[in-house]
């Protein structure tokens, strides 16, 4: 097994200097990682110790500079199987100690090479923990990474960062969603058809449904009600995605139409926020978000705790301890994060619709919440049986 040793031992090469600049003026100096150049985005930290390939290709990270709190990154290289979408979406990547040699039997190339190939600007060798603590205390904020010819004086760099748009109010789902509809066929015998509205969907999500006999029609974010029902869905799914849910009126209107027809509905992440807004709840931006794969979420219907993958900067503002009346009947908070009591799931009590704020499809992350896909299937079972009875 020598395939993982690519290029073998080279003398230590020193990458070009790079600078990470936060909008509040804090500056970290390190070395360029991946592509050399300039990039901007919202600086957020992710605490997962595994799964950088999934994280980098998760469309929800669009326009974000991701800080890996795990210090050794790139150890398993880059393979051809673990991408969650067709490309790397993060706008920048911040790591402490990048691997020089990848080691994994599936690795095809190094992470560094992949970042360069996709033109993703990164920085290494900075105190990522100090940066994380800063973001925790001050909140996620705009940032820029500058290397090579992009480096200028500090005031100039801060000014350039401040000139960038804020994440709050940003509408980004259209830029990451598929332009063309496509079908993910059921694995094994087909039981149901689901129309999945792509707001930044991860590859694992339709796969998890397909495993359960669902044929998934992934539709562009701009799909109309007619487009959606043209596939004759047994259920409708709203995916995760980037940006501020308050700037997603299109998807909210589309979901409202689905709710009116009482089609079984499941939403994940952005989809949860869309459901919240469709039910009349507000959404708000968290100080520094939840990004990681170790978050304890309690399923309030069973009392059980699941360890879950999170990637959300916004959350739904719904009352935790009471059932709310909405225009679609009674609704309640079904899941809550035990770390900070943030709403992690909603469900309607009078019609077949539910959503979660976190990622039951995992990738990266634990599989504890995979049962939610079964819950979606059983919603469709129930509706089917009721239909047959009627």
């Amino acid at each position, binding site marked *: 097994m020598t395939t993982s040793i690519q290029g073998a031992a080279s003398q*230590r090469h020193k990458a070009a200097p790079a600078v990470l600049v936060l909008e509040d003026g804090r500056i970290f100096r390190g070395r360029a990682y991946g592509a050399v150049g300039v990039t901007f985005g919202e600086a957020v930290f992710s605490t997962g110790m595994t799964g950088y390939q999934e994280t980098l290709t998760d469309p929800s990270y669009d326009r974000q500079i991701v800080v890996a709190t795990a210090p050794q990154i790139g150890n398993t290289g880059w393979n051809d199987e*673990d991408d969650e979408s067709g490309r790397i979406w993060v706008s920048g990547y911040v790591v402490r100690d990048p691997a020089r040699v990848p080691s994994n039997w599936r690795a095809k190339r190094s992470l560094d090479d992949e970042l360069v190939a996709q033109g993703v600007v990164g920085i290494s060798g900075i*105190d990522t923990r100090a940066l994380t603590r800063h973001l925790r205390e001050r909140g996620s904020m705009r940032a820029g990474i500058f290397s090579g010819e992009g480096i200028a004086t500090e005031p100039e760099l801060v000014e350039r960062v401040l000139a960038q748009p804020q994440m709050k109010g940003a509408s980004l789902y259209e830029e990451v969603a598929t332009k063309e509809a496509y079908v993910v066929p059921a694995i094994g015998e087909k039981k149901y058809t689901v129309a999945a509205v792509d707001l930044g969907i991860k590859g694992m999500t339709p796969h998890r449904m397909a495993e359960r006999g669902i044929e998934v029609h992934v539709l562009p974010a701009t799909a109309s009600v007619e487009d959606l029902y043209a596939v004759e869905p047994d259920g409708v799914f709203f995916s995760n995605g980037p940006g501020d849910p308050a700037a997603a009126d299109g998807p909210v209107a589309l979901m409202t139409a689905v709710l009116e027809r009482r089609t079984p509905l499941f939403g994940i992440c952005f989809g949860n926020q869309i459901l919240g807004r469709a039910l009349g709840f507000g959404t708000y931006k968290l100080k520094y978000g939840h990004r990681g794969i170790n978050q304890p979420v309690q399923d309030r219907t069973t009392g059980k705790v699941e360890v879950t993958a999170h990637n959300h900067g916004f959350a739904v503002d719904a009352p935790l301890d009471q059932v709310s009346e909405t225009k679609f009947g009674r609704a309640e908070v079904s899941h809550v994060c035990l770390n900070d009591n943030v709403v992690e799931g909603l469900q309607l009590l009078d019609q077949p619709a539910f959503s979660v704020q976190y990622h039951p499809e995992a990738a990266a992350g634990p599989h504890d919440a995979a049962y939610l896909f079964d819950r979606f299937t059983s919603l469709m079972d129930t509706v089917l049986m009721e239909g047959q009875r009627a």
Partner: protein
Amino acid sequence: MPKRTDIQSVLVIGSGPIVIGQAAEFDYSGTQACRVLRAEGLRVILVNSNPATIMTDPEIADATYVEPITPEFVEKIIAKERPDALLPTLGGQTALNTAISLHEAGTLDKYGVELIGANVEAINKGEDRDLFKGVVEAVRQKIGHGESARSVICHSMDDVIKGVDTLGGYPVVVRPSFTMGGAGSGFAHDEEELRRIAGQGLTLSPTTEVLLEESILGWKEYELELMRDKNDNVVVVCSIENFDPMGVHTGDSITVAPAMTLTDREYQNLRDIGIAIIREVGVDTGGCNIQFAIDPVDGRVIVIEMNPRVSRSSALASKATGFPIAKIAAKLAVGYTLDEIPNDITRETPASFEPTLDYVVVKAPRFAFEKFPSADSTLTTTMKSVGEAMAIGRNFTEAFQKALRSLEKKGSQFTFVGEPGDKVQLLEEAVRPTDGRINTVMQAIRAGATQEEIFDYTKIDPWFVDQLFLIKEIADELAAADKLDPELLAEAKRHGFSDQQIGEIRGLREDVVREVRHALGIRPIYKTVDTCAAEFAAETPYFYSSYDEENEVAPREKPAVIILGSGPNRIGQGIEFDYSCVHASFALSDAGYETVMVNCNPETVSTDYDTSDRLYFEPLTLEDVLEIVHAEQQAGPIAGVIVQLGGQTPLGLAQALKDNGVPIVGTPPEAIHAAEDRGAFGRVLAEAGLPAPKHGTATTFVGAKAIADEIGYPVLVRPSYVLGGRGMEIVYDETRLESYIAESTEISPTRPVLVDRFLDDAIEIDVDALYDGQELYLGGVMEHIEEAGIHSGDSACALPPITLGGFDIKRLRASTEAIAKGVGVRGLINIQFAMAGDILYVLEANPRASRTVPFTSKATAVPLAKAAARISLGATVAELRAEGLLPAHGDGGELPFDAPISVKEAVMPWSRFRDIHGRGVDTVLGPEMRSTGEVMGIDSVFGTAYAKSQAGAYGPLPTKGRAFISVANRDKRSMIFPARELVAHGFELLATSGTAEVLKRNGINATIVRKQSEGTGPNGEKTIVQLIHDGDVDLIVNTPYGTGGRLDGYEIRTAAVARSVPCLTTVQALAAAVQGIDALNHGDVGVRSLQEHAEHLTAARD
């Protein structure tokens, strides 16, 4: 859901003496558990025979039984205390096996005791290899992943030989069932090896069962630590990756947390399998550890084994993550769920999460092969290390190099000077895993090996291999640079290079490098272990150093005392020193100081983040300690640094710390020198008019011979500047003296050999005392069972002394006071005396906490280490008496007439070691210490206390049966009386012809048996060794014949170890054993808690 209300009292079983594979980590776990249970309002009853533990401190449990952990004794405790529940998962394999025995004997049912933390079915499913294979198969059916290595279960040698074919041939792995630390397992490459290993395995296994399985040598190895609550919530606390690939016991491997070379898919696959296994096994409340092997070629996953209990790895995982597994296991056992338990570190978030790390943890094992020169040093699936060090860094290289220097062993750090040697030869050497293989690998890299070559020879993962190359490249840059510029120096520090290493590469002194570094402003900062990668604010100051940007040490106002711990456990410096450090921390905290602990041993109570106000998990080198002192000086006032409680490790730093302006409290470095330097100590003795045995130093045989001729044989010889009696030997004649000096590698013109008169037939006495500059408090006087010449750490001893009178104590007190005063002690001192004839000789004095402090403290119910810490900071004995920390009057030299007798017995690791031919190593005691741990027996009379100590250490003394006696000529006279006693107790005596003849002439009948050298008799008469192997002998007395011609004895003693037959190697031990047998045969042996003993003692003192 709150805790269960139907349990009011719980019995916790500890793990007994420290042995290889079961060490201080169970004191850490057990102490945490007992505290938690008490805090929950439960009455905690504890049994543990090991006095050197914090858990057996009277304040940790409500009733503390320092009694043997055998089903018989534990039943007595149950009958007396009637606990509602028994928690068996925190005392290692010992506790688990004892609990299973009690269950199978019906004892638990009889007394209505519920097993909590793990049920019997789950324990069996996890521990029994066949059942566990069924578990793995069931998991594979359910989730489609995970499998066992192909294997066959064998109950006989025939099964074993046939089994090889079904697995596709050699090599195969042999694993005996129900043994701890992998005892008895190994790789067999051919039939001869197989017969040997499997034969031993069948014997070691209590169920005469071994598992034979396909070889997965060279695969990647991982461990997961999981916890599950009664609501079926499961969390994975930590993943651990072994640096050494499969084939080396995980306890002997360098290990890394978190796993470094898994993608998320592969990690989640392991996690899914792990969770499915804990469910299938049915561990309802508590923790377990699961080991996996992964084929580096295609990722095939094999589940190796699981431990349905708290383990060494869980202790490591707790320290590595800040997630206290044992504490939480105890809470789960009494009914809490994970989401109801807060995370101690953040205090805001619950325990139902999975820790995430923003640092890298490396654990490195510490071995003691130098103590067992004939033992095979190849690392196998049987654990051989005696301790470990852990280090934390912000990257692998930093953590790794810190871990290597934490081992505090010559040559453990990488060296980059000198000729590395021949590449091919080094690579071939690196194939065999050994202590220090990593250094061989580094030399191979220096000699030009490529990354591919290193992988091909060692199967160490390519990512780790590249990290070694990274370290080597930086060393090259350091060597090649014109000057030490700030960027290069910072880079080297960032990858864990010590000032000493940099100095070596640059040809500079370590302190010069440090000066340059400080001048350039390159200093470490300290980061917090917070369980959550900084997502939430941490409330617990648990620090590690890194060369990074932001420092997290907060300012403080109270004066701080920095306590230096004892580093990795090793023979001669173990848990006893941690005990003293922990006590100091508690006492000084009570006295109003802020306590700061520095240590790098993950097994210990001292490195629990709960023990001190601040914890620095750091190597105990001068550089690392100086930086911590600096950081704490920046944070607030420092009252001082304590160096006298952690053994030789901190003591060795004392002078250098002082020279660097660090305030040392307690006994000053100059006084330490006065006790340690032979010349200076000789002057102290001369001034006090105290005799020492005649001695001299020499650098050649001629010189040594002259000294020996003058003082007379036997002489005690040893190299200078060694610890723990390393290389020490009693030499009976000139021939051996010549060969000793020829063989010794440690003797040179600058390192002379010390030749002392050996006091034959002397009684050795150990004294622990406190001295405040004015007043002496005699902590305790211990009389050794074995004669002088056997290392005090390996000798059994009794307190109060059983044959010394008031006059002797008076002399000891006067001598101790004279030495304490002469040396200048402020705190603890330990002195070893030898009483030969009527003369009291001083053998040596150690101005520090000794190995016996915990034993003395428990035997006399006085916390000596706490008092020592207070005296170090200026309190006087009189003040401490007034305060109540010391008794108002009297001391350990004048215990009440009916004070209980405490016996300490040493526990030896013989069964762990084999020579390269697979034979056991000899078990004879000598002046070099080789025991790993100790037990204490306490009762009203010596015989019973001794019998308890034997039961705790090796298993109960036989009360009838066949005793074999074979003694050296010089012991024949003293053997007669105890032999007669054995006959009186109904023993049948067996003896070799010479011994039988002496017995016969004294009117004692003994059956003559054949020596091993005589072979089997004409009528098939078995030799003594065969008889032992066949289980026909119940007690063995075999004293060695000097140094030569002891092959027969060697065969006898190793057979005794293999069959676990009690084997006494001194006549003094025989005499004590006879008293013990007498006590056992004279009615019921009772149990009494330390609290009851203390009450009794206190009442008698008043």
